[in-house]
């Protein structure tokens, strides 16, 4: 684990996360979360679905950022060419690769309300991440998806810029997928924060498992793509992202849609 992961996963990272409840606010309103037992079930479900999907996307984005970031370094990469035209072309390819991965995140997010929330969070994270860990790869990503990239994509790319591994990126995504809603439930229901942290502690084995599965899935997908093709620049454009996990959570989708239509709400999502 890289120490930068601690900064990235910290709820104090100034990237707007505190205003998102990941469906918890609406679940509380709907009576689906009334206490710590309900909350534990909600979090377990969220981790196994959205948590795994976002962890895999985050690991994939971290991997992609590292591949694209090695452009121009002394590594004998096939696409390291000195001419301006080649550089512009590889920049175009890089943007296209980011847009493809972002489209995969979109395809895995059925609810427009969740897409909106994910893009808002991604935009804020990328903005802060670029100031904290400046990197050309993050600039390219911001230019590729100017209205805001999906949060797990931003998280993976920022993780790479911070020096974190794919596994770290997956861990950060899985971790924030449950700590955000848990904190929101503490605030909304006045739950005992120590008991809620015990619930989170109980989920640690699941967290580790999700991060491992997600990393393996992302690495397998990326490596298969890169190995199969000619130059790496072409390869990143042809990675079979559709093979990444795509677990759905229709209840979360519905909660997100209802939340957006509720007049009185404290959280963005």
């Amino acid at each position: 684990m890289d120490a930068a992961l601690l900064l990235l996963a910290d709820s104090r990272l100034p990237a707007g996360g505190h205003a998102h409840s990941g469906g918890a606010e609406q679940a509380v309103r709907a009576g689906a979360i009334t206490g710590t037992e309900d909350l534990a079930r909600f979090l377990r479900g969220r981790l196994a679905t959205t948590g795994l999907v976002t962890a895999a996307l985050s690991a994939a984005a971290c991997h992609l950022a590292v591949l694209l970031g090695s452009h121009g370094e002394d590594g004998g990469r096939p696409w390291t060419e000195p001419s301006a035209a080649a550089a512009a072309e590889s920049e175009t390819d890089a943007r296209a690769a980011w847009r493809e991965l972002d489209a995969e995140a979109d395809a895995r997010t059925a609810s427009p309300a969740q897409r909106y929330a994910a893009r808002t969070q991604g935009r804020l994270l990328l903005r802060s991440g670029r100031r904290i860990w400046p990197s050309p790869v993050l600039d390219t990503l911001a230019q590729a998806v100017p209205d805001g990239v999906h949060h797990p994509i931003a998280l993976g790319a920022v993780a790479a810029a911070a020096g974190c591994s794919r596994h770290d990126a997956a861990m950060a995504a899985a971790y924030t997928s449950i700590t955000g809603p848990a904190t929101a439930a503490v605030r909304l229901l006045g739950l005992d924060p120590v008991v809620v942290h015990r619930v989170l502690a109980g989920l640690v084995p699941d967290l580790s498992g999700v991060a491992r599965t997600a990393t393996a899935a992302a690495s397998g997908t990326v490596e298969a793509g890169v190995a199969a093709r000619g130059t790496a620049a072409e390869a990143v454009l042809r990675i079979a992202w559709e093979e990444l996990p795509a677990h759905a959570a229709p209840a979360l989708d519905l909660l997100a849609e209802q939340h957006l239509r509720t007049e009185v709400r404290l959280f963005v999502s």
Partner: protein
Amino acid sequence: MSANHDDRHHSPDPHGRALRLGVGGPVGSGKTALVAALCRTLGPVLRLGVVTNDIYTTEDADFLRRAGVLDPERIVAVQTGCCPHTAIRDDIAANIDAVETLEERFGPLDLVIVESGGDNLTATFSRGLADQQIFVLDVSGGDKVPRKGGPGVTSADLLVINKTDLAKHVGADLTVMSRDAAAVRDGKPVLFTSIREVPEVYSVAEWVHGVVQSWAHTQAHHPHGPVVPTANA
């Protein structure tokens, strides 16, 4: 600096951007009323944008839009997830995003006002969000409030003590408030207002106009802006 003009994530160069004015203070002290008044009075002379930080709903943004003091599209609401204070001090990302969105859409602007959701006396704006800040108290909380101090009262660039029309009803002594505020504010200005009686709030508008002008002046004379990290630094 990058030359990517299509990059909407790029923090605007401090050179030439609008002054960002934070308006903070306890719930109900008259922040929204003050923002509306400033828009009414300064709207004809300055290019404005407003960001509200509502606690539950989009109440303040809706009020301002209905008041017709500003093009409704120039008023953006930010949600703060139970923590109005966090959104203006510790994690200002959503507010910065809203300010930059307004500047991109309607810029160049002279002034963007960010109204806090309202909090206790310790709530102040981060310097990363607000270049200048006004703290709004009202007399109905009692004349002891300025003496209690707190970062809002002591460090705001301008302290506004509103609802002077209510002073006689709540037995608040304005001289005491004025003396106590002066004692903890180290010479920084304090203005008494009754937005109910003087809806144009000329005194505050004049102060705001002054800081906008000196901001524009500073920017023009320091073409590279103050040394702050930017997205591409």
